[in-house]
């Protein structure tokens, strides 16, 4: 397996956690999430991957989407907020992630 494939696998689960964690701070649109992640390219979420992910999270009941139209008119955007199930999932995922990160860091170290 080459490094790019490995990185892709690594990012697969992390992207979901990143989105849920960002939504924990308040409802955001797909654009809002992408803008928040713009400075974090290693998370690996792009315009092409964020909407299928949000669509799945909504179908799983972890987030709830709502269309909001700007006060001045114009085309609205769908904003997503965490549901109670999403909050529970985030809590479990956060705990699992911290344990995983700590254990792996102990093995791999932090030197680049």
């Amino acid at each position, binding site marked *: 397996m080459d490094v790019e494939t490995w990185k892709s696998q690594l990012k697969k689960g992390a*992207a979901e956690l990143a989105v849920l964690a960002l939504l924990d701070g308040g409802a955001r649109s797909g*654009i809002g999430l992408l803008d928040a992640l713009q400075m974090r390219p290693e998370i690996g979420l792009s*315009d*092409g991957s964020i909407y299928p992910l949000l669509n*799945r999270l909504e179908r799983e009941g972890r987030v709830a989407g709502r269309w909001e139209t700007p006060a001045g008119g114009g085309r609205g955007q*769908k904003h997503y907020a965490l549901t109670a199930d999403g909050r529970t999932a985030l809590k479990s995922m956060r705990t699992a992630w911290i344990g995983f990160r700590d254990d792996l860091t102990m093995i791999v170290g932090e030197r680049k």
Partner: protein
Amino acid sequence: MSDAAKIDDYVRGLTRALRALPDREEIIAEIRAHLDHRAGEGKLGEAITALGPPDACARSFIEEMKVQSAFADGGPAKTFGALLALASQRVTAATGLFFSGIFFVMAAAFVFVGFYEMVAPETVGMWSDPATGSFFFGAMDDPTLPSAHELLGPWMIPVSGVLAVVSFVIGQKLSRFFIRLMMRRKPLLAI
């Protein structure tokens, strides 16, 4: 081409590619809103490149939806349907479709044999022919082979029933296995 025309063009392609999905309007509206927003920032070209061609963008939704729904439901119709729908795009799905399909067809054949035993018992059975060492289970037009013995008699009905259930369960387990495999191997799209 103006930004509005480019957006219309992309959305038209996406609408066509998503025609199989019942709730596509929501997805299309969201992608259009995304493109409108990016056009307002002067980044429409980058946004279209990042989304990929309409077919690829649609495929990422369809795959995510079918695989997820099959996994959540777990029923044989959903899992087999997902493999069927994705077989043309994913080798794993095509392989799963082939192997689970064999067992579903076998299950159907055993059900047929069980029913046929009730209608025409003389033509249905499990024959063994010591002379040739051959063995046959099922229905045949001419079962009067001189050296062949029918072994099961009326037991063909419960035996066929059990074999049908076993084949069906194996087919279902295989479908689920390949759906799980697809979920594990599915790369995050458009990274």
